[in-house]
């Protein structure tokens, strides 16, 4: 029974992905004559050489962490989509410490990444507090915090930390002690290992600890949680702070390893990609790894396609949104599911 239900879930996932890719294909059909060439780069691009493969792994890191953050809050049925703002503010925190803290090897890097996580959590504090204290909708408030983070950080960076010697609007370069190492000739971001261990840690927290159980109970049924003596408000509060920490860490890792400056002049979008990663993983932290890899694969594939054929890579956003709709469509394949359950029930009689 359980196995056939799992099979149904998987086939649903496969059908969804196929439909989404088909819609992407139709889009390409309308915008280029050589669809096969475009599709080839889109689907095979990240595997075509070693440099692109590393690019694909690097791309999965920030969305793995934001996806993890969002899967955690979605588990508690909290619609906080402020990961984007936390990531941005976390990046800012990393920059502050990287530029101002004494340059002690190792300590500097650790403090930089901790600052990123701390700033992320601080940013998540506002919607979390407003939710717990006054039941203000975390959806709207976390979104507003995204815009505020963007404007505030841009103001700070461009006015107080701008490197005038650099050609673009970027901050001063981080000192070497605050760099997160990149490996191999193609600069594989070592943050990948941090992200994977964070996934395992959070997965363990969620499925093997009392606190994790509380989160899941609150997500499944708030009233049940309340009557079984769980402090619902506090659980919901800490879940959001933890998620903010993870998102902030993502920002810190991205800057300390890939750019070594504060470079973002617009919201990078990793927080929003995290939503689709979490949904694709069905809010299961362990499944966040393959799900983030899959989304990163599509993204890098679209970028390579864009570089090789001149098409707009935004087609991948369309594909992603179709996937969100179809994966969360509870009624899809519902009839089969019902039949399956009925048949099993009959067998047991």
């Amino acid at each position, binding site marked *: 029974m359980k196995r056939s239900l799992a099979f149904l879930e998987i086939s649903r996932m496969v059908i969804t992905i196929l439909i989404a890719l088909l819609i992407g294909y139709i889009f390409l059909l*309308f915008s280029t004559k050589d669809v096969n060439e475009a599709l080839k780069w889109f689907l095979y691009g990240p595997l075509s050489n070693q440099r692109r493969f590393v690019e694909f792994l690097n791309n999965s890191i920030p969305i793995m962490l934001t996806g993890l953050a969002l899967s955690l809050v979605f588990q508690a049925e909290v619609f906080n989509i402020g990961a984007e703002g936390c990531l941005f503010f976390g990046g800012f925190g990393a920059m502050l410490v990287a530029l101002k803290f004494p340059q002690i090897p190792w300590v500097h890097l650790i403090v930089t990444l901790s600052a990123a996580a701390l700033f992320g959590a601080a940013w998540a504090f506002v919607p979390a507090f407003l939710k717990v204290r*006054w039941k203000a909708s975390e959806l709207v408030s976390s979104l507003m915090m995204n815009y505020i983070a963007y404007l505030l950080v841009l103001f700070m960076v461009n006015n107080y930390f701008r490197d005038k010697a650099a050609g673009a609007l970027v901050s001063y370069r981080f000192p070497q002690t605050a760099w997160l190492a990149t490996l191999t000739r193609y600069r594989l971001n070592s943050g990948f290992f941090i992200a994977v261990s964070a996934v395992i840690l959070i997965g363990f927290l969620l499925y093997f600890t009392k606190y994790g159980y509380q989160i899941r109970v609150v997500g499944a049924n708030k009233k049940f949680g309340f009557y079984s003596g769980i402090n619902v408000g506090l659980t919901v509060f800490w879940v959001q702070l933890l998620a903010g920490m993870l998102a902030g860490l993502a920002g810190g890792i991205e800057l300390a390893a890939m750019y070594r400056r504060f470079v973002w002049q617009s919201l990078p979008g990793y927080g929003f990609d995290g939503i689709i990663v979490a949904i694709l993983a069905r809010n299961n932290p362990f499944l966040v790894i393959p799900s983030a890899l899959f989304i990163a694969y599509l993204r890098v594939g679209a970028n390579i396609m864009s570089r090789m054929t001149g098409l707009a890579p935004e087609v991948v956003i369309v594909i992603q*949104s179709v996937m969100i709709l179809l994966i*969360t*469509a509870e009624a899809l394949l519902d009839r089969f599911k019902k039949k399956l359950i009925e048949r099993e029930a009959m067998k047991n009689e």
Partner: protein
Amino acid sequence: MSNFALNFVDPAFWYSILRVSTPLLFAVMAALVSSVAGSINIGIEGMMLMAAFWGNVIGAFAKNPWVGLLAGIASAVAMALLLAFSHLKLRVNLVIAGVALNLFASGFTVFMLFALTGEKGTSASLGSQPIPKLDIPLLRAIPFLGKVLNNHNALTYIALISIFVVDYLIRKTPLGMRMRAVGENPDAATSVGVSVLRIRYLSLLLSGLFAGLAGVFLSMGYVSWFARDMTNGRGFIALAAQALGGKSAILGALGALLFGIAEATGFTLQSLRIPSEITNMIPFILTLIVLVIYARTRVRSHSRIQEI
């Protein structure tokens, strides 16, 4: 600073408030008609963006702003239909569906913009067909108010009228009554023979219509080109403004005007050399404050059990 105070007696300042409030007024009506029937339309932002894109592009190709207006509205209503279908038929969570719709609109418009113009920033190269401004002699004659109210974009007048139309629709018509019934207690509505499904579909489509008007105004009135992600959070600000007004169209519209004042004040502060990043923050911070005020009044009226 005295310059700043002078602003409030300057009719041009109040004129600009009406101008920046127009998309918010429409968007608040969009939020209202769906929330009255019990569904939160997170997708307003995406519907607006889609309408802004198609309105501008089709208007430019047809060389007629009104064709553009209709195309823009049609695209937003189509998005609303997609939202309604996935929520009501496929049972997608309404919030997730709305988020997906916004994502879709943001990717789709940039993709199409690039395919049509070869540019990713704006559609300025297409040439544009803005919706004309109306010079009403009767209004022009009034001394102070004339300068505030006259010579606005045609859509601004439609926005002002639609406040009262929506107000009437919700409070006085049988359809509005059914919408409220479905929003407050779907089971009770069903028991007296109201089709919950049909009313929810209808209210979401109506919401799409107003979101479409909001979007079209942005690209064919507020400015005369489409820019990527030009809605810039207005759909969400509208949700907050609507929350402020509860189930009343008039109060919701006042909420929209409050945000309009915040935005217009931001422009004025900018001329006083306060950096644009700080002034642009005003509407978002105001939204947060309003959200808290609204939530506080609501929590007080609830019992302890409902508070969890």
